[in-house]
């Protein structure tokens, strides 16, 4: 009788330990999943199946609402993504130190002017880089000066916003420039491109965001 009680006790104890381990494991997996989600989803470059040297940009924002933001333009006016509701928007993260960004800008200007009558706009967002401190006024003024000169030189007709680094988390890390998100009229991301691509690709994505197909 005593032995049975002992065996029963040990079995119950083991079952309790088992249950605890299961719960702990479930909790761990839940936290890991939450962490992954909270990383907002860090965009990734994943080597493509066919050619391992050509990574494919995989953004977790695809087919999801573009995270809203409000940033200042060069004149200090606050501009928010939400105010473009009903329009197709290309959110183009770029930087003054980025050669490929400078190369694609004339294409963006041309395409923006072409598709604006259909309800399309580009929001150029300058990213300064992680070594410009928030309190470095001289650095920010230098950066604004470089942006203004670039805007003037390229006759950029669309809004240029600053402090793009503040959107790093919701927009997937912004590890490389240029990074473009094409948002449709409903505010959903329909295409995401990291790095310089062809003008034809950009146009194709603009048409997609306008709901015009390819």
């Amino acid at each position, binding site marked *: 009788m005593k032995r049975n009680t002992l*065996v029963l006790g040990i079995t119950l104890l*083991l079952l309790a*330990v*088992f249950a605890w*381990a*299961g719960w*702990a*494991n479930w909790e*761990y*997996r839940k936290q*890991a999943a939450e962490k*992954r989600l909270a990383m907002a989803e*860090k*965009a*990734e*470059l*994943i*080597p493509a199946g066919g050619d391992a*040297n050509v*990574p494919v940009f995989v953004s977790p924002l695809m087919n999801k609402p573009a995270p809203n933001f409000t940033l200042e333009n060069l004149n200090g006016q606050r501009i928010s993504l939400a105010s473009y509701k009903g329009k197709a928007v290309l959110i183009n993260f770029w*930087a*003054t*130190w*980025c*050669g*490929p*960004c*400078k*190369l694609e800008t004339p294409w963006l200007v041309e395409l923006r002017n072409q598709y604006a009558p259909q309800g399309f706009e580009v929001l150029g967002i300058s*990213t*300064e*880089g*992680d*070594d410009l401190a928030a309190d470095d006024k001289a650095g920010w003024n230098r950066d604004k000066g*470089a942006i203004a000169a*670039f805007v003037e030189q390229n006759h950029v007709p669309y809004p240029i916003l600053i402090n793009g680094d503040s959107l790093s988390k919701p927009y997937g*890390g*912004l*590890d*490389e*420039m*240029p*990074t473009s998100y094409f948002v449709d009229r409903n505010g959903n991301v329909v295409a995401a491109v*990291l*790095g*310089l*691509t*062809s003008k034809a690709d950009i146009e194709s994505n603009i048409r997609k965001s306008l709901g015009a197909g390819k």
Partner: protein
Amino acid sequence: MSAVRTANVADIEAEIKTQMCGSSERMTVRRKLLLAIVAALLAVAAPAQSPLSDSPNRSITHGAAVQYLFPEQVTIPAGKPSLVALHFQIAQGFHINSNKPKEDFLIPTVFSIPAASGVALRSAAYPDGTDITLPLDPGTRLSVYTGEFTIETRLVAERGNHLVQASLRYQACDKNACMPPKTITVPIDVIGQ
């Protein structure tokens, strides 16, 4: 009576044997059960001990594009300018602007040593950049470093052992995109004798 006793003794012995056998079998079953439970527990608990086991695919661009290779430690005459060659490596597929990029907007590669570190940077001789053009922009020539490169520094150390946290600022790109400018720490143990 004796026969009964003998029979009883035999029965008791048989019973003891059976009990021992049963006990042994139960022991084996119990041991197996215990082992199974322990194994199951280990299997269940294992993922919690290995956070990388189900980590998502990692970006290939996160982290530094440039690594400091060597030297980790140098011994130079105290108070006397001495040549120290610092070796770096750039990740495959990336390039960084040379110390003298061809365009004003490009960020040059610059090595520096913080003040009051016991070691002064008298001069730094950077290698010439290699001229390249990118497939999507054949009209623009860039002056860049790729692979391994060496900066020839002239250091002046005070007498003693100085763990210098020097810096290298650079801005890296691949053929289609650019990473933000970055400053990496270059740790060098400089002994001034």
